[in-house]
């Protein structure tokens, strides 16, 4: 199985080389072979005696992240869908994409997507699952933006990326919770610890995070808005990603985790409600659309909502119907997308208002569309698979396990009505799709191209899918035992024996189907009269407007905030930094009760020191307030000399010496430079700014005084200096202890201090030289 998952990735490496000869050999043939091989490999697992298979390959054993692949009924269903429809779509794209397109790019993205999708459905390790999950988001982003010169493509790609990655990250959160709680990374082992998870205090979070990931990926309300915009992708991509595979990843996730989560009542409430709302909203919105692919996009949304709702019901019939409908939807929706692509390809437009009467020009395409749309609408005919799963859906909505009451009870009563309501609109848009495109008055002159039947290569794939619709419709039991049953039992946890009949007698589900048929026909025939209603709702409440506003405002307010404090003024940054230091240190001091003062061990106060201190304070003030450069620099010099005097008093001869020399040199330097600087100006700052500066400066001074007093009052250990005193002569061979420390005990400091001086000297030299060369 590892090879099956990796094969698309490996072939993707060679695609760019193959695409160099695309004039002679369409790159799509190579891309078609890959899923076909995988399909043939997995088809062998089919059969009534199917048993789950697990294979393990080490990847990061220390983190318990290994490539563990688990093939059970559910995975097999998805694997066959991905590889089967993948090969049909790849074949279709050979005729759809012209050789002048960037075929290399397209098929690389396509194979990357297919490989990661296979990884998602086969992974048993949650982190490997997540890795492939994000890979599908990424490759789908690339595919949607394939025609990246189009503004709408870029917009759609970004939108789908933002929404699905948002969901992907929340999924990661849920998976991390799960693996921490259960102490395993294997999904199969987690399913065995259902009790532990259900009773854990973090269960609501796990449920919420995982469902959020599933809902965003599967375009459930209100996260469905990315799917219609993803229709900017080439049609093979829409057919593959946005009908059969990627949008079902969320369904797969819910199905995979439902044995663990579905015992919770919240699972029923959330998943069913979201699913049924998505079904109704998607089918209603589809009726309003005028673009063929937009109709199909909203149709996909509503069908996914239906599957999601059935997974939420959690009864045996519902799970069976959900799994069955996954297969059915993939067949008819895939073929319908290809039909839309053919219509677009042969007439040059997808606008249903311009189309009409194409039956005579595109007879084969029209026939294919007929099967697809009628199956999608659930018309009760014995050769349409859509009808079977729809009737199961009605049946399931009627036979829910008795809920405790409260909101669940209300929901339970409402569900059958909502199901019928959504299905009526499904019927309307399906009829509109077929009759609007292929019947009625042809407007040949308005079309960009003169329509004629598509090449046979383009028709093969939709023919195979339509044949699937009919075969499943005619002989539903053919796939039931060896295939659907295993998938359903993998979701439900038990073996579900369900026999698929066309005719059950006149029972409630059948009456519901007939009601859909009748009301749908009436609504379709009076369609034009309803136009004002379709226009008015949702009107301004559109979710796209909300999304656009959200993105726009996020950018705008981030800019406002950033520009608010990052205004480029160095003074402001210094103020912020120092204010932060003051606030943090004072808070810590206050919280920990850190300030203490002790009068022990202080030396006595003497007059000379006090005088020098007073002198230094006066000169510091002078240096700060003087408006004359000369006065300010000389005042600064007085501070330095005062410090040197203090060094003398405090018995630091070397320090005093150095300080005198350095201060002299510094003052000299100031003198050299100040001629070139403009004179100090009288400050023209507003009083408030001046007060702020004084408060910040005063606060910082006070802060240091308090810190120093506390530190001095809490000496915990004796100084280590006695070692230096004792050993200066013995080990260092010198009398001057300070100098021995500088060059002997701690010579490394001195080495790098010399380096600092050297670097400063070089920098000064080059700064001056650089200026001169420019002036010359």
């Amino acid at each position: 199985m590892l090879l099956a998952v990796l094969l698309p990735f490996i072939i993707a490496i060679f695609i760019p080389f193959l695409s160099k000869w695309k004039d002679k050999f369409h790159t799509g043939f190579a891309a078609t072979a890959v899923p076909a091989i995988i399909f043939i490999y997995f088809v062998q697992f089919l059969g009534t005696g199917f048993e789950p298979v697990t294979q393990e390959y080490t990847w990061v054993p220390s983190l318990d992240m290994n490539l563990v692949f688990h093939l059970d009924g559910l995975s097999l269903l998805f694997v066959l869908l991905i590889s089967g429809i993948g090969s049909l779509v790849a074949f279709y794209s050979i005729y759809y994409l012209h050789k002048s397109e960037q075929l290399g790019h397209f098929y690389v993205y396509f194979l990357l997507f297919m490989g990661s999708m296979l990884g998602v459905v086969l992974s048993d390790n949650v982190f490997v699952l997540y890795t492939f999950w994000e890979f599908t988001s990424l490759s789908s982003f690339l595919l949607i933006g394939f025609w990246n010169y189009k503004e709408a493509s870029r917009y759609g790609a970004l939108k789908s990326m933002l929404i699905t990655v948002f969901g992907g990250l929340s999924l990661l959160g849920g998976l991390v919770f799960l693996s921490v709680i259960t102490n395993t990374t294997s999904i199969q082992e987690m399913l065995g610890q259902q009790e532990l998870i259900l009773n854990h205090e973090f269960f609501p979070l796990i449920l919420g995070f995982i469902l959020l990931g599933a809902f965003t990926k599967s375009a459930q309300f209100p996260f469905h808005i990315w799917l219609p915009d993803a229709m900017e992708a080439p049609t093979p991509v829409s057919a593959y990603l946005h009908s059969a595979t990627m949008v079902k990843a969320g369904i797969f996730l819910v199905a995979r985790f439902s044995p663990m989560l579905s015992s919770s009542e919240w699972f029923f409430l959330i998943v069913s409600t979201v699913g049924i709302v998505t079904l109704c909203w998607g089918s209603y919105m589809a009726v309003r659309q005028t673009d063929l692919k937009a109709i199909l996009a909203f149709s996909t949304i509503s069908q996914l909502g239906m599957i999601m709702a059935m997974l939420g019901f959690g009864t045996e019939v519902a799970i069976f119907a959900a799994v069955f409908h996954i297969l059915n939807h993939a067949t008819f929706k895939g073929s319908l997308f290809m039909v839309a692509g053919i219509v677009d390809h042969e007439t040059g437009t997808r606008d249903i208002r311009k189309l009409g009467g194409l039956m005579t020009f595109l007879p084969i395409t029209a026939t294919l569309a007929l099967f697809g749309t009628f199956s999608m609408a659930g018309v009760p005919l014995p050769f349409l698979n859509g009808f079977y799963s729809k009737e199961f859906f009605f049946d399931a909505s009627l036979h829910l396990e008795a809920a405790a009451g409260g909101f669940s009870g209300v929901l339970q009563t409402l569900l059958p009505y909502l199901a019928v309501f959504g299905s009526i609109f499904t019927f309307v848009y399906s009829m509109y799709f077929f009759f609007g495109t292929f019947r009625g008055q042809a407007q040949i002159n308005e079309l960009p191209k003169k329509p004629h039947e598509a090449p046979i290569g383009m028709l093969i794939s939709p023919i195979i899918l339509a044949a699937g619709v009919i075969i499943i419709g005619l002989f539903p039991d053919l796939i039931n035992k060896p295939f659907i049953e295993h998938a359903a039992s993998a979701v439900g946890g038990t073996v579900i024996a369900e026999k698929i009949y066309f005719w059950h007698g006149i029972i409630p589900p059948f009456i519901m189907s007939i009601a859909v048929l009748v009301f749908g026909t009436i609504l379709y025939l009076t369609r034009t009269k309803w136009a004002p209603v379709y226009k008015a709702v949702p009107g301004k409440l559109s979710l796209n407007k909300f999304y656009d506003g959200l993105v726009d405002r996020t950018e705008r307010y981030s800019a406002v905030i950033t520009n608010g404090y990052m205004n480029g003024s160095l003074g402001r940054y210094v103020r912020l930094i120092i204010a932060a230091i003051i606030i943090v240190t004072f808070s810590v001091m206050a919280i920990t009760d850190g300030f203490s003062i002790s009068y022990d061990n202080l030396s006595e106060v003497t007059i000379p020191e006090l005088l020098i201190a007073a002198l230094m304070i006066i000169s510091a003030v002078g240096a700060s307030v003087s408006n004359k450069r000369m006065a300010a620099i000389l005042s600064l010099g007085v501070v330095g000399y005062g410090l040197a005097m203090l060094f003398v008093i405090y018995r630091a001869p070397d320090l005093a010496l150095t300080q005198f020399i350095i201060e002299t040199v510094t003052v000299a330097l100031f003198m050299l430079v100040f001629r070139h600087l403009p004179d100090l100006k009288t400050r023209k700052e507003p009083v408030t700014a001046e007060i702020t500066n004084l408060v910040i400066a005063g606060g910082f001074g006070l802060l240091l005084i308090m810190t120093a007093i506390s530190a001095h009052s809490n000496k915990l250990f004796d100084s280590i200096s006695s070692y230096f005193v004792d050993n200066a002569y013995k080990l260092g061979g010198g009398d001057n202890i300070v100098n021995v420390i500088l060059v002997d005990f701690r010579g490394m400091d001195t080495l790098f201090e010399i380096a600092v001086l050297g670097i400063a000297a070089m920098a000064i030299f080059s700064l001056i030289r650089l200026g001169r060369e420019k002036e010359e």
Partner: protein
Amino acid sequence: MELTMVILAGFLFAAGVYNLLQKQLLRIIIGTALISHGAHLFILTMGELKHGAPPILTEGIEQYTDPLPQALILTSIVISFGVTSLLLVLAYRASKLNGTDNMEQLRGNDYE
């Protein structure tokens, strides 16, 4: 005495920060110089003041002032001298090239 010195050092810091918040380059450099003076005094005070003779080994003296802070300050003085002189030349170059020594006007360009 330590308390007095601590207050003096704190005052030097306050004056330095006040200068740092001004707009003219020369004032900012004066601010950094004041801050380094404050820091040196700080380190000295945090050792013990006046407890013994200068740290030069002499016959018959047992008690010396702490030599370690002095070594640290000596290193620091030299480094702050290097930085101050670099800053001065930088200020000189900056004001000459840009025609202003006002920090509020030296904000980079709008094209970044």
